[in-house]
């Protein structure tokens, strides 16, 4: 199967190996971005690692596009150190759609997937322990969603230490 004009050899090879799991391939600013079917992402990543040398997961993050459906993008930046190549893999996910975890492909995905759950509310199926990473357990909401206000919402209860120093009245303090 030949790819679109100008499509790089990697994406052509991947289409041959993975078929319609690869939705699109785009090169911009010298960077190759592959859009991949959400349910196939673990399989695509495993292929990239085992057959194409992408042994490093450089980064994994989320992006919110509330005007789109599904609204979230999960973005993976991979690196093949031997050949010095990089590739960006993206999937889209909705609020209810779990994304297959890639912790089985790279252990480096552990905390970044937890962070996406914490800040965007996207679940990763197969993650060993999907818990909040940066915020605390009682925190309500997912702050990097575009509809979450920067300063938080008034319904956010303060963490246990907040509430100020009134009533303490000790020593010469205050």
């Amino acid at each position, binding site marked *: 199967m030949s790819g679109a004009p100008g499509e790089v050899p990697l994406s052509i090879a991947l289409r041959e190996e993975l078929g319609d799991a690869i939705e699109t391939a785009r090169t911009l600013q010298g960077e190759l971005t592959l859009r991949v079917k959400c349910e196939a992402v673990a399989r695509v990543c495993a292929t990239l690692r085992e057959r194409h040398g992408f042994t490093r997961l450089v980064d994994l993050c989320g992006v919110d596009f509330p005007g789109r459906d599904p609204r979230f993008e999960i973005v993976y930046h991979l690196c093949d150190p031997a050949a010095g190549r990089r590739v960006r893999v993206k999937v889209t996910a909705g609020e209810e759609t779990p994304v297959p975890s890639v912790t089985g492909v790279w252990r480096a995905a552990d905390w970044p997937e937890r962070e996406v759950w914490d800040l965007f509310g996207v679940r990763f199926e197969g993650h060993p322990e999907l818990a909040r990473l*940066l915020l605390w357990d009682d925190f309500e909401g997912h702050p990097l969603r575009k509809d979450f206000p*920067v300063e938080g919402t008034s319904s956010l209860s*303060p963490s246990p*230490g907040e509430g100020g120093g009134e009533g303490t009245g000790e020593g*010469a303090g205050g």
Partner: protein
Amino acid sequence: METAPPTTPEPPLLTTTWDRIFDWARRLGVRPVRLGLGCCAFEMLPGLDPRHDLARFGPETFRATPGKSDLLVVAGPVSRKMAPLVRRIWDEMPDPKWSIALGSCAGGGPWRTYAVTRGLESVIPVDIHVPGCPPGAEALLAALRELEKKIRPEGAAS
């Protein structure tokens, strides 16, 4: 024959109260516990070096144990996740105790987000705010001198 009065001077006697002694000791030797939460922590480090030498103004040792300290210096933003820990450290310190909010972040600062408290003052009582981003070791020294005045009781001679 009259006995001449003794010519050797009497040894000087210093009369005082326990409170004054303790205050004098506290002034000269605050025992800080330092919460270096952000970049300001790095500005506290040069305070220890020979150029600034904070130790000559009293705080010889920065203890890690709140139970043995009387001054809490918080340098950096107090996140909402951090707030309960700051509260716990403050509560573990015995009376009398004082606190310094070092830097703009500790004083309420630029981080107006869901994640940060409105400053150290929303968590514990604060004696001295030192503004600056970062304030510099000299500003911490000035804050310690201000603190000395707070510890000194009203009307006492220096």
